[in-house]
């Protein structure tokens, strides 16, 4: 008596996997972004959710208005000095597990604006998982970033984030 007999009896109705993989698969395919569009990248983010590029097929159509109901923050646009504490507050309000995509050059490094008013990279205040270059990045770039993030989420499984 062993697993082989079990397989005969149960046939193809049972899948075996690890909890980490199933949780990772579930999380990765239902990432709900928080609406955090700041500037021009927000428009391309809207296009990504639009009909031609369709974010919905990745499970991310539900862009939640409240950060407490979302698990991904796509920082789309330039973060000014006045906005930075607000961004941190929104990030803190999101429940674990949470991820951040820094969309566009301004969010990643400050972009075209190397000056007093713009935070030179949102990773100065929140930990970023995927950076998307571009000014603004094409919707396909954002979809690519989401797919990379999905791989990362699947790999993370049920381990707590360090």
């Amino acid at each position: 008596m062993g697993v082989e007999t079990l397989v005969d009896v149960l046939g193809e109705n049972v899948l075996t996997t690890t909890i980490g993989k199933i949780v990772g698969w579930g999380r990765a395919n239902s990432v709900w972004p928080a609406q955090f569009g700041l500037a021009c990248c927000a428009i391309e983010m809207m296009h990504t959710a639009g009909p031609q590029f369709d974010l919905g097929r990745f499970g991310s159509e539900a862009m939640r208005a409240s950060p407490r109901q979302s698990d991904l923050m796509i920082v789309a646009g330039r973060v000014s000095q006045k906005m930075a504490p607000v961004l941190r507050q929104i990030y803190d309000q999101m429940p674990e597990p949470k991820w951040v995509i820094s969309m566009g050059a301004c969010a990643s490094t400050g972009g075209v604006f190397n000056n007093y008013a713009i935070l030179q990279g949102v990773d100065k205040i929140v930990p970023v998982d995927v950076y998307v270059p571009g000014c603004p990045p094409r919707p396909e770039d954002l979809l690519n970033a989401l797919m990379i993030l999905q791989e990362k989420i699947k790999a993370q499984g049920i381990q707590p984030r360090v």
Partner: protein
Amino acid sequence: MSKARTRPHASHEHVLDEGVSAGDRWITVKREGIAETLRALQAEGYQSFLFMSAVDHLATPVRPEPPERFELIYQLRNLEAREELRVRVWVPEDDPVAPTASEVYAPAGWDERETWDLFGIRFDGHKDLVRILMPDDWEGHPLRRDFPVGGEVVDFSEDHEVWQTAPEKA
């Protein structure tokens, strides 16, 4: 564009100078008389207030001696005659104050707040002169020429020695 028209505003008591720059007509007005002059121009037909701002003429090798450090600009438009007029006011560095125009033209309210925020020029009589674009606890007036552009120093860039990091208190 030359139009035979009387120029009554040239006879206003506060007007110091007038001219044309790249097709734009302008007049220079004494600081104390700005509200009165704007009121007179509004009555003349310049109903539309386009914008108001300041220019910092901190001395540079190109222009070592401007009349004063700050120049306020008011751009007005006469919708019927389709003409525009620029009103300039010189404001000295040691006394950066000017009378408010927000009683005469409503859009000047926010423009003056922005000028206060970015240049440090106070407007007497303005009802709500607080910072508008920078955080409330920001120190300094960013658009002044002696305020550094800020940001991060980029290695090997040609303006490397010119870039300075942002002030400590952000």
